[in-house]
């Protein structure tokens, strides 16, 4: 039987196909509303705002691929932000900054390990566990920094905000590194384990895949990526706010789902979620450029997201009807 390139084939084989269409579409609309969008300065100022969500979406993508979900990532972002803003301070030395960056990454991995312990070893439901720990982490951030304030040195902040090696935004290099790591990891044995556990955990266990370890690992990775996102957003804003991560959790999940990963696990990758995160951020841009009444912003944004999420389903429904 000859293989034809059909819609079904594309959707099944290349889960990032649909997110690519959405990305191109949103870039086109954005370009129409903001013709200088691809200029070096504008591009950089956009990408540095998108990067924290991109990092968070990559971590979330790994968790969803492995058959879990992590609702506590926003809390981790807040913890990292408050640690950096209170411990480094506006007049801190660069050495102190890097020292606390390292501590932040460890804190993120630890927060993920706590989730992983509950879920993989105590066999608790991922959604309930991370929902509970999300309050734990958000509460901890508020404990560290009850009122917005503090910050990191402006030099370091500027390093993040203005670095454009070879004229390209820093974020592009980060994305390239993330994709390279993913291409490597997904072709190692650990990558296969990830898909196996997310696809059908019982079958993976019967095949002697270390299921518990893989499940534990995805939350550590997610916590680590959330810490990276927290560092990025702190460098972007330069100041501390314990509620900075609160909104990011749902955005990260939305980005992954727009990115074509299956909510049930085992299908997808990282490229799609990165595109999903960019698309989601562009939608935000489009709304502000379109001069929509601020009171309507949430409604309009949510409507666009719902339509984007529903589109593949609607297309499939129409195809079924026609068959």
């Amino acid at each position, binding site marked *: *039987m000859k293989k034809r390139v059909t819609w079904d084939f594309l959707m*099944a084989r290349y889960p990032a196909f649909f997110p690519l269409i959405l990305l191109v579409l949103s870039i086109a609309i954005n370009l129409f509303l903001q013709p200088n969008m691809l200029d070096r300065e504008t591009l950089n100022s956009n990408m540095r705002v998108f990067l924290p969500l991109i990092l968070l979406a990559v971590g979330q993508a790994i968790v969803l691929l492995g058959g879990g979900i992590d609702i506590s990532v926003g809390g981790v972002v807040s913890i990292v932000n408050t640690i950096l803003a209170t411990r480094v301070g506006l007049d801190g030395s660069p050495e102190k900054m890097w020292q606390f960056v390292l501590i932040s990454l460890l804190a993120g991995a630890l927060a993920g390990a706590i989730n992983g312990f509950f879920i993989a070893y105590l066999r608790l439901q991922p959604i309930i566990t991370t929902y509970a720990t999300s309050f734990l982490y958000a509460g901890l951030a508020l404990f560290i920094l009850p009122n917005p304030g503090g910050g990191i040195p402006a030099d370091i902040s500027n390093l993040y905000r203005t670095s454009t090696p070879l004229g390209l935004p820093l974020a592009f290099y980060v994305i390239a590194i993330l994709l390279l790591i993913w291409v*490597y990891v997904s*072709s*190692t*044995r650990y*990558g*296969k*384990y990830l*898909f*196996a556990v*997310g*696809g*059908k955990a*019982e*079958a*993976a*266990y*019967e*095949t*002697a*895949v*270390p299921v518990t370890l893989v499940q534990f690992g995805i939350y550590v990775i997610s916590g680590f990526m959330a810490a990276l996102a927290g560092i990025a957003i702190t460098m972007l804003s330069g100041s501390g706010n314990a509620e900075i991560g609160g909104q990011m959790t749902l955005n990260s999940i939305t980005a992954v789902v727009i990115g074509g990963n299956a909510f049930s696990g*085992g*299908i997808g990758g990282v490229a799609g979620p990165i595109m999903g995160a960019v698309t989601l951020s562009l939608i935000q841009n489009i709304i502000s450029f379109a001069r929509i009444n601020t009171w309507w912003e949430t409604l309009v944004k949510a409507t666009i997201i719902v339509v984007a999420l529903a589109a593949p389903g609607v297309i499939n429904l129409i195809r079924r009807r026609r*068959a």
Partner: protein
Amino acid sequence: MAKSLSVRNIIKRYGGVVALSDGNLDVRTKEVVALIGANGSGKSTMSKVINGVVVLDGGQLLLDDKPVHISSPQSAKNMGIATVFQELSLIPQMTVAENIWLTREPMTAFGTVNRKAIKDKTEQLLSLFRGTYKTDLHPDDPVASLPPDEKQIIEILKAINLDPWMVILDEATASLDGRQVQRLFELIGDWKEAGKAVVFVSHRMEEIFRIADKYSVLRNGKTVGAGKMKDINEKELVKLMIEKESVFTFTRGETKANEKPIYLEIKDLRTDTLHGVSFRVREGELVGIGGLRGQGQRDLLLSLFGDVPYSGTVKIFGNESKFKHPREAMKKGVALVPGDRAREGLLYIRSILENLQLPSWAQYGFPLRIGKAKKDAEQAGASLNLKMAGLGEPVSSLSGGNAQKVVLGKWLMRKPRLLLLDDPTKGVDVGTKAEFYALLTQLCNEGKTILFYSSTDEELVGLCDRVLVVHDGIIRTELSGASLTKENLIAASLGTSKGGAL
């Protein structure tokens, strides 16, 4: 080097249910041991204990006469024991090659999986069953897209790829067709030559006598007999399994269906897999549908149930009906007993009562008259001889045969006029099968019409008035009366009557 594994007096409990109370088994190299028992007798539990999927509560495992502890699938694998599971251990989203090599992937110098190597080696493994595939099977195909028999073959190849000294085949032939079983048996012969041991778990007597050297019979979690195949016959073996004799024969009395009116008339039915099927069925007839697996039999039943879009005409009592949804078919008194009871037939974690009443709740009004529903379910359970602790128990507590009775029962409670059966006796023990046959005969005598697809040729020959043999989407042959023999059925299944166009 001769190796051996002995299972001594093992006990396994799941909660309050004792799955094994005194399990014994002896296997050594160059032997095929048939592990036999009715459903729920503990065969699957025994294989799971040996494979380390479940940990035993008592008793001993001896590897080469030394006690061993098999605590996980990993440790079983390290001891050279591989299992072909009944509930498939394949990851549907992953490809054939990835599944076969999972946890044992050959690596490159960079620590990545060597995709070329696994592809080449998978091609070699696939060639073991070359010629029996119905699709263009390729190492890069996702497992989810394969038909059940090919999934089962991948499962077999995955186990044998471990190069174990002992292979447990847990109902591995249940979804294979005749040629695939033949090929598997040739391979088992080779493995035996090469010094492997095979534990063969099956319900099919004929296969057991063809392939096994020794037998071991389980009944209610106890090993009740073991010995050499050549010292025992089919009747004695069945007797060991079920304590009482007399179940294995089934014949249907002469019917007077010829005088009955035409109930169902189908003309030029076409779907993705059916290419123009026409036939008529009289009221009260039991018509078999035969042929190799996956020739379109399932589509035929599903389209009559409104679950698959089709072209062509379907007349019920002369009235043309085109069901677009199972709901419409149900209203007209059509019922479908699906083949995959775990996926399509039952809500395993819900109670027997809920499962039995699921299609019928509407007739109990609002608010539901629970008392009456319970009484009706009670009655249905009794008439099916359902062995259960109570209506409130979850279906998952039942053995395979009893669970299948619930699937049938839930449709019989709607008092259907046309029953579509999709391989209902798959994985059901002989005792329950016998009850099943009696029930089908009785239903026909009550005037119900039955279309009965089965992968077991004996059933079709022994039970049906006529058998329509489907091959490659069309009805190749119709067998009835004197022409309805096993030989003719197999010949027609293979498509030989028209020059073997396989």
